């Protein structure tokens, strides 16, 4: 569960970082969406703390001990574009939630002690629910048209 907590926290930080980046580039709609995603991840982390009733924060696993460079629920640092649209942000969140679901399913199907596998199964169910919620959210958001990243007046040009 310490690992799950660490994963949610890392995702919360990355989305907050993306919100700041898009604020700076005046893409307020997507910045706001990233702020929402960041808040949701922080609520997940908080709930783990409450459920575990840890008297103090447990020693978190070394952050760089994931199989990948970062936790499975963390979006890649270069996954943003200044012209991106809400649909792109949700697509990114969907990918992260799917990775988290697969991560916990992998632990549940592995050779970990029964208590760990049970907890992993619960976490996988939870991530599955997040996947469903994001898919619902995506249905309410327009899909970007081709050429969404073409800027007739780019901020940085060598012309």
């Amino acid at each position, binding site marked *: 569960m310490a690992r799950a907590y660490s994963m949610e926290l890392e995702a919360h930080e990355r989305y907050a970082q993306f919100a700041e980046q898009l604020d*700076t580039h005046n893409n307020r709609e997507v910045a706001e969406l990233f702020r929402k995603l960041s808040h949701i991840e922080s609520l997940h982390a908080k709930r783990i703390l409450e459920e575990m009733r840890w008297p103090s924060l447990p020693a978190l696993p070394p952050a760089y001990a994931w199989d990948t*460079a*970062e936790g499975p629920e963390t979006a*890649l*640092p*270069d996954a943003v574009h*200044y012209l991106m649209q809400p649909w792109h942000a949700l697509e990114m969140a969907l990918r992260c939630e799917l990775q988290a679901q697969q991560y916990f399913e992998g632990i549940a199907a592995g050779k970990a002690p029964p208590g760990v596998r049970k907890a992993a199964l619960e976490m996988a169910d939870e991530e599955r629910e997040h996947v469903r919620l994001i898919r619902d959210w995506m249905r309410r958001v327009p899909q970007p048209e081709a050429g969404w990243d073409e800027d007739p007046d780019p901020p940085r040009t*060598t012309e």
Partner: protein
Amino acid sequence: MNAPGAPMLAAKDFKSDTKPVWCPGCGDFSVLSAITKALAALGLKPENVAVVSGIGCSSRIPAYTSCYGFHGVHGRALPVATGLKAARPDLTVLVASGDGDGYSIGGNHFLHACRRNVDLTYIVMDNHVYGMTKGQPSPTTEPDWSSKLAPGGTGLKEFHPLVIALASGANFIARAYSGDPNGCAALIEQAVRHPGFSFIEVLSPCVTFRPEQREWKNMAHPAPVAPTDDPGRAARRLMTDDGFNIGVLYQGHRAPYRLGNVASQTVEALECQFRL
């Protein structure tokens, strides 16, 4: 030094309220994050750390931290940091630079900072391009990289900073990748702990002028061998590596430079010597 028993700070405590203006997706965001994580892991306090830089996208970093900072002159971050460390050896001094600032304009300072082996940590965010000034080729740009500003490429062989650092006497040489901020933080932490001049080259993609560098995520890989303290072996490894080996590549044992006689005179006594 921090007071004994002082609470450990978190990475966010090393970030300032100034929001970075880098392009979204820039590798430098992750380097900033890695620096703050490393400083927190080292148990330092912002008032015991100074971040010194030159000019360029990466050199904006001091403003984004809550540590002491000096955003200096192009290519001159290392001399400023050397002076600061000599005067205030109690401070942890980090130096931030880019491939243009650090290897071209500041190239000569790079050689002599390695040679002097003052206890500094030099973090160079290398994206193989001058990003801030709209995409000119830098010393680490590939000879055949063709752009509007260098049609057909420069045809010039690229600089090999790690080999040069080794030959010049750097005591710790590592390569990190910004796409792995946690790994990068761990390397910065090791570099700060290692006495003497520590040099970390961070592959930090420029998503605006070198979008093809997004592919670095598929190219960066852990160095297949453990760090060595043998300069000869390190030289062979560095000369033949593919440019994407990530990790500590050399760790020497050379004693860091220490100023023998720090502030032994009062200001008044010094003024007397210059009185006409």
